């Protein structure tokens, strides 16, 4: 674990750049992470997904998979991939300041 500066704030991140302490997160940090990952601007649709992921993590201790994200957030899977190219669940988690989703076993 290392400490790094994102949007002028020192935050703890893992080797892949996921925040390890979700309390250090704020909206400026989200925007900075989004930019660094190829999303120039976070639209309302992005925010809807990011907030959904974050809320879910904070209330249940784990982030949803892409499929349940598609079912529950109201944003269809296809659109999730347009909003967050490559790995929507991973990227939305990163932007939302929560740990990397554990994936499946």
């Amino acid at each position: 674990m290392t400490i790094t500066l994102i949007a002028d704030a020192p935050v703890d991140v893992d080797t892949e750049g996921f925040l390890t302490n979700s309390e250090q997160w704020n909206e400026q940090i989200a925007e900075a992470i989004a930019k660094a990952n190829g999303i120039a601007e976070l639209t309302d649709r992005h925010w809807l997904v990011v907030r959904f992921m974050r809320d879910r993590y904070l209330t249940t201790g784990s982030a949803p998979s892409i499929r349940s994200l598609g079912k529950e957030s109201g944003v269809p899977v296809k659109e999730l991939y347009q909003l967050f190219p490559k790995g929507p669940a991973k990227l939305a988690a990163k932007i939302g300041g929560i740990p990397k989703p554990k994936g499946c076993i």
Partner: protein
Amino acid sequence: MSRKQIVILGGGTGGTMVANRLRRRFDLDAAEIHVVDRDDRHVYQPGLLFVPFGLAHVEEIVRPRRRQLRSGVVFHENEVAEARIARDEVLLEDGTVLPYDALVVASGVRLQPEETEGMTGPGWNERVFTFYDAEGADALHGALERFDGGRLVVNIADMPIKCPVAPIEFAFLADWYLRERGVRARSEVVLATPLDGCFTKPIASEHLTYLLGEKEIELVTEFSAGEIDGVNGKLVSYDGREVDFDLLVTVPVHSGAAYVERSPGLGDALGFVPTDKHTLQTPAKANVFALGDATDLPTSKAGSVTHFEAEVLTENIARYFADEELEAGYDGHANCFIETGFHKALLIDFNYETEPLPGHFPTPIGLPLLRESRLNHLGKLLFQPIYWHVLLPGRDLPGLGSAMPTAGKKRTLSTPAQGARR
């Protein structure tokens, strides 16, 4: 203690094991045990892997469910319509209402090929197959016999799936099968997976990726199947990547049983049942327990997992009735033989905390772990009689208790508290 009513939903691997264990545990006048399943065909699912290659036939791996249940277990051949957990009763499709003191959810998963665009469209069961159910495995057998070279693509539509090693095993066996038939030189074998490696656990994934390379099987990772074009032979990911195929072997999206979604408070968005990792009680209600593929537990969906869980779950139902504290006895233990072709297999063994390690199982002179061997292949074959005659009846297998053994492992990481075992 008045006579208890126990209702078990699903008469597959987990439901059968739990029913038989409970039947032995309780006298007839202490508990009435009901098992509900929609049909009377119990499939030995690990055998499905061999059907497409002509190494097993469907009739050899199917037996009547009723006959696997001890006498004194009541079997209902019926569809579960709804579990009304607030009222401690289950509604069956024919209108029967089964009240219970304890409920066991053992209804496994539901395959949903229709969830992926185009999967069940033109080409389904002609060029696009699954071996995850008996009909599919049988149809694929015919297609493989006719396969005369080209691109054979194995794809996992989405995680979670049961037996996450089965698609890798399928690719290994396909390589072997095509070589035996002399068409491997004009064939390509591809494994496309949504994972970032071929398997979910890093050390085992590394070993398996090495084997894939050795067998010249192409691995495509982080590939989430969005659409299948069975006419033109194209598999397209959500992020627009394309994989061409002549024959597609797919593992469709898995969800929990449909009635779970109709039962308020029981399941999550995908129909899996949130379950305590160690006691197998559900947070939905104290008298509702779950095991096997139906749960949301962070371990593999596998028969071995279900078997280890059955032991803990039986104990905990007895404790629940006796008003005692539940045993936090399940440690996530999973144990899988991975068939690698050419009469060899490798074995992996892991739990919530410890990933699959090299060494031997269960002790330093046992079966080799994470290494191909003929002995492991024999172990895999021997599993079918063991399944019918030892595991389903709920007998204990020496050396194969629910807690993961560590004696033969090369590098023992932390093991969780395993609770007081009997």
